């Protein structure tokens, strides 16, 4: 990884524009100047089985018909559709691929009939942890994952993503205990190693087929932290720091060849954009249907795609929920794109309002503020490997939060300030050397049996 940021000036850190543009699907250009809506959806309460399969298909048909119709009506210039498989559909790859095909066909027809430019992102759900402890590189679940990947180009996917969960065996424990060392181990050591293996495999397939390898999300770690913080289970400062720790792990995919747009739920996106220049998909207030969050606006500040994360196909008063989200995304994007059409100065203006409206109020929003992203990114890339980067990520996030809360730039709740000190102390005890951390973690009785070191090449 180069030791300079791809975006190192705040005036170049803009929504809609990324140093490396992604072209895919039916005339879609991401990061080339316009923010593009990315629509996500999932099933309402129902069983996925042989008996119900027909019903499942009907749901997806209804969803995509509604979404495309609304996109055409609102003259959406370009559309990204994400289909995230549910476990049953990964475990029976032909199921996941059948829905991919269905969506691709409908999008094709809509392009021909109405000129709607669109691309389909297939996000494979990581089923490897159905084994506990998970087998990461072999066995039935790995086979299923490869099965759906191998069929994706033929089924009509334009982009591939995954939300891999390597290291989560430790990550969960780390979160509920606010154990920053274990979080770094989970993300920067286990996660990063698994990502290297996994994304090497994915980009290999993509190189053969022309499908775009897009990105991976640390959702199972950093969004879990965010959800836990929203429920007042863990301090917000800890969730903010975990978000930043997740950056080096998600970067691994890009080093292995992923090109973006990064995953919507990867709120670490701005860091990935600054460091690697890839376009990013983000979500915020638009995704309130899926996660409540303290980053509803700031998450939008430098996005290239704007997403709703996921919503069930249930009837609202107006229409089904995915159609409702489609409408909201379309208007959010219209606003950003109209400002962008006036030039960079206007982009910066809107970006800063988006950023300023959230960032002083919550540490999780603050670490997504473009200026802070650049500051911390600079420090992250000065380090050599994912472990050191993760450690530096944690240290710099903690430092920045302490510093800027003192200066009144970010509000941190009284009872959270002591956590910043406690985390700082924890960080001081961590070794500079990865091997030593691994050693320490392998010793810890509560982690024994939770993960298989060999599966991470340890």
């Amino acid at each position, binding site marked *: 990884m180069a030791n300079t940021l791809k975006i190192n000036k705040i005036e170049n850190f803009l929504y809609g524009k990324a140093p490396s543009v992604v072209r895919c699907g039916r005339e879609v250009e991401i990061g080339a100047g316009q923010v593009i809506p990315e629509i996500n959806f999932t099933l309402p309460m129902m*069983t996925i089985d042989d008996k119900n399969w027909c019903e499942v298909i009907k749901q997806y048909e209804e969803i995509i018909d509604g979404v495309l119709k609304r996109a055409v009506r609102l003259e959406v210039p370009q559309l990204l559709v994400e289909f995230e498989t549910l476990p049953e559909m990964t475990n029976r790859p032909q199921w996941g691929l059948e829905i991919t095909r269905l969506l691709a066909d409908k999008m094709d027809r809509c392009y021909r009939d109405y000129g709607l430019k669109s691309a389909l992102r297939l996000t494979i759900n990581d089923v490897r942890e159905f084994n*506990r402890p998970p087998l990461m590189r072999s066995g039935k679940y790995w086979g299923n994952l490869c099965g759906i990947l191998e069929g994706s180009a033929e089924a009509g996917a334009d982009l591939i993503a995954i939300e891999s969960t390597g290291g989560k065996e430790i990550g969960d424990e780390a979160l509920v*205990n606010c154990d920053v060392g274990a979080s770094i181990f989970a993300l920067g050591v286990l996660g990063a190693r698994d990502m290297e293996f996994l994304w090497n495999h994915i980009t290999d397939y993509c190189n053969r087929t022309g499908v775009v390898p897009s990105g991976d999300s640390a959702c199972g770690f950093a969004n879990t932290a965010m959800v836990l913080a929203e429920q007042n289970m*863990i301090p917000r400062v800890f969730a903010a720091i975990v978000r930043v720790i997740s950056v080096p792990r998600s970067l691994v995919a890009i080093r292995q060849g992923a090109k973006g747009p990064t995953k919507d739920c990867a709120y670490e996106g701005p860091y990935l954009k600054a460091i690697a220049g890839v376009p990013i998909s983000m979500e915020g207030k638009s995704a309130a249907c899926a996660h409540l969050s303290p980053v509803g606006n700031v998450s939008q500040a430098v996005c290239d795609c704007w997403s709703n994360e996921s919503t069930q196909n249930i009837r609202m008063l107006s229409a089904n929920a995915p159609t409702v989200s489609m409408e909201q995304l379309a208007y959010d994007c219209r606003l950003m794109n109209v400002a962008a059409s006036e030039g960079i100065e206007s982009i910066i203006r809107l970006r800063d309002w988006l950023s300023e409206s959230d960032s002083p109020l919550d540490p999780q929003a603050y670490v997504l503020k473009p200026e802070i992203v650049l500051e911390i990114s600079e420090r992250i890339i000065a380090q050599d490997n994912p472990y050191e980067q993760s450690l530096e990520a944690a240290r710099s996030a903690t430092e920045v939060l302490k510093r800027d809360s003192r200066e009144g730039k970010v509000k941190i709740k009284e*009872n959270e300030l002591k956590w910043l000190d406690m985390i700082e102390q924890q960080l001081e005890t961590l070794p500079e050397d990865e091997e030593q951390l691994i050693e320490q973690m392998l010793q810890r009785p509560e982690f024994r049996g939770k993960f298989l070191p060999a599966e991470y090449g340890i």
Partner: protein
Amino acid sequence: MADMKDLADAIIKGDMKTAVEVTKKALDEGVEPQKVLNDGLVAGMGVIGKRFKANEVYIPEVLIAARAMKSAMEVLEPKLTEAGVEPVGKALIGTVQGDLHDIGKNLVIMMLKGNGFEVVDAGVDVSPDAFVEKARSSGAKLIGLSALLTTTMPAMEKTIQALRNAGVEAKIMIGGAPITQAYSDKIQADGYAPDAASAVDLAMDLVVA
């Protein structure tokens, strides 16, 4: 003389060493095991629980307290059994088939334990049959089902049916982000709770009733 207030304080602080020491001392001095449990351990956890509900402390602090309690319980338990004191109740908690989400479930388990329940963790992706089997082998009086996916919610209904068909008489409570009271009513669970703290209240109600 061993002071129950000290014991409670040790739990609140998560001071495992002191908690164990005071418990031992109290038992040596002949304090009733039931009193040690109620006025020391449960009282301490009660304070932490209240602070948690009031957003004054976070789960890690509750976990530390719970661990201190656990250590003290290891000392206390044989004495409680001798004295014929029963745990509040025995519960079996798991995530339903097809679902791997377990953070919420784990927090419920932790809170129940902190409130004197004996809990068997059934794990994740638990099939209806496996629930029936574990219900039988554990003899739990309370069963908790967790589901986080709209596509695994129906597995709750199946599990409840399987349990009832198998003649398991335990009360069944359900939870998880997509669950609602209405859904609980629909599938005839005995109760629903939206979070771990209220899961304890619900569990108490169900077991005492």
